[in-house]
């Protein structure tokens, strides 16, 4: 794990969560989890964090359906999705390549993506691997579409795509990403080379901002201890911290 990059990504995601009241974090999502806990710490608890797998930050008591019901009730402002493939229209593929019954390549499955992508207002796509293999012109299987036709009930959708190289914003009416910032060490050209789909790019693309020193201190201090409860190995590797 690249510590600087990981902290950068946590900072990027934290910024995406600004203004949210409630964010839900799925399983196996330490970076979004850390980002959410950072915003929570920074706002004095104004952001409510519902983190699956956590004991301390999981308020759910109605079983596995509650996250989904909660999203349908409009109580979840932000959620994170990934994808074995992500295309330029923000379609995501978590299922596989090829067709059943003989998949060429098989991913774990859709999880709740075919639902939450429609219902959570700010879905942040997060996939650290940024290669033409992952960011493809068109996904082979649509686990969930980036946009829907008019008349389809869809209060939710993609807000941004965060990768290990850059941040894309999403322009829903145009069904296209635009390059919002490149991480230190990358350039607009290097992003273009590693991205399989077409996207818009302004003439001048800013460098992704790092966390301000105060936030970084908060992350490495209090938040590192909090995230260790759910992701002990992540916290130990990144911050050398045990659960607070």
């Amino acid at each position, binding site marked *: 794990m690249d510590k600087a990059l990981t902290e950068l990504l946590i900072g990027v995601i934290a910024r995406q969560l600004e203004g949210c009241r409630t964010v839900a974090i799925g*399983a*196996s999502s330490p970076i979004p989890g850390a980002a959410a806990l950072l915003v929570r710490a920074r706002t004095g608890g104004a952001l409510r964090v519902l983190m*699956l*797998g956590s004991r301390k930050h999981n308020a*759910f*008591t*109605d*079983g*596995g*359906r509650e996250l*989904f*019901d909660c999203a*349908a009730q409009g109580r979840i402002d932000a959620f994170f999705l990934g994808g074995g493939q992500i295309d330029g229209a923000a379609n995501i593929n*978590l*299922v*596989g390549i090829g067709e*059943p*019954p*003989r*998949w*060429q*390549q*098989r*991913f*774990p*499955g*859709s*999880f*709740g*993506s*075919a*639902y*939450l*992508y*429609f*219902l959570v207002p700010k879905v942040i796509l997060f996939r650290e691997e940024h290669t033409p293999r992952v960011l493809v012109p068109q996904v082979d*299987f*649509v*686990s*969930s*579409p980036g946009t*829907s*036709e008019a*008349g*389809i*009930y869809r209060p939710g959708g993609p807000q941004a795509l965060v990768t290990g190289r850059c941040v894309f914003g999403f322009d829903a009416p145009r069904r296209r990403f635009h390059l919002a910032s490149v991480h230190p060490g990358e350039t607009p050209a290097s992003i273009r080379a590693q991205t399989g789909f077409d996207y818009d790019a302004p003439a001048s693309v800013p460098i992704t901002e790092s966390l301000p020193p105060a936030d970084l201190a908060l992350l490495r201090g209090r938040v590192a201890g909090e995230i260790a409860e759910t992701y002990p*190995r992540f916290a130990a590797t990144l911050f050398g911290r045990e659960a607070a």
Partner: protein
Amino acid sequence: MELLSLDKLAARMTPGSLIAIPADYSGVSMAATRALVASGVRGLRIICVPTSGIQADVLIGAGCLAELETSAVTLGELGLAPRFTAAAKAGSLTIRDTTCPAVHAALQASEKGIPFIPLRGLIGTDILRQRADWKLAENPFADGADPIVYLPAIKPDVALFHATKADRDGNVWIGRRRELATMAHAAVRSLVTVEEIVDVSLLADETLAAGVLPGLYVEAVAEAPRGAWPLGLQDLYPTDDAELARYAEAARTEAGFRAWLDRFLDGRSAAA
């Protein structure tokens, strides 16, 4: 409620049985999984509620399954589930892809004795495209066009899971893991393994009762200490990460899987 041996409990699941199993975090009966594999049963159908990990992977690798409906099979941070992935490529197993809330909703439909339940989302996905049993319909309460998907109820023959304790009336403590209650309500009958059988009624104390699945739904219970191993169980014991890692490595090949399985059938770790 009948108190059974693990073998007798496993024998209640026969070819064609549709078995609901919970996700890794919820109380997985690896003890019953071992007994199923040992029984040599074939042709089981599994519905994952809503995902699975090593349990489904072992059942697939051991050849017990004819069909699997799931939102995902994964070993989490350890990566892809190897036997699931191999079967998906070989086409040796009927896999029906679904999505988590669709599993929960379709079980709730059975719980309520209704033939179907509508659900938002799903439209425009290839999951829907592949599900001939789901219907794209129109919301009959909308003023204008408002397409919505109808999911048929899922009625498992068996809900199979592991919990911390049951009493002599078959009441099972499930705590916050209420998807186990939904599974049990939806299923024809529940087969449950537990860490221990207790002699006092779990319904006697109201605080405890709030987390109980009533014996009304439970056909049989088998005692199986550490019955979720190598997975963890609530506050009792954590997941055995090292053993799961050994599984993830071994099961990358058919031969490695077989070697791991032999040890597992003996109740031994692959490290032993």
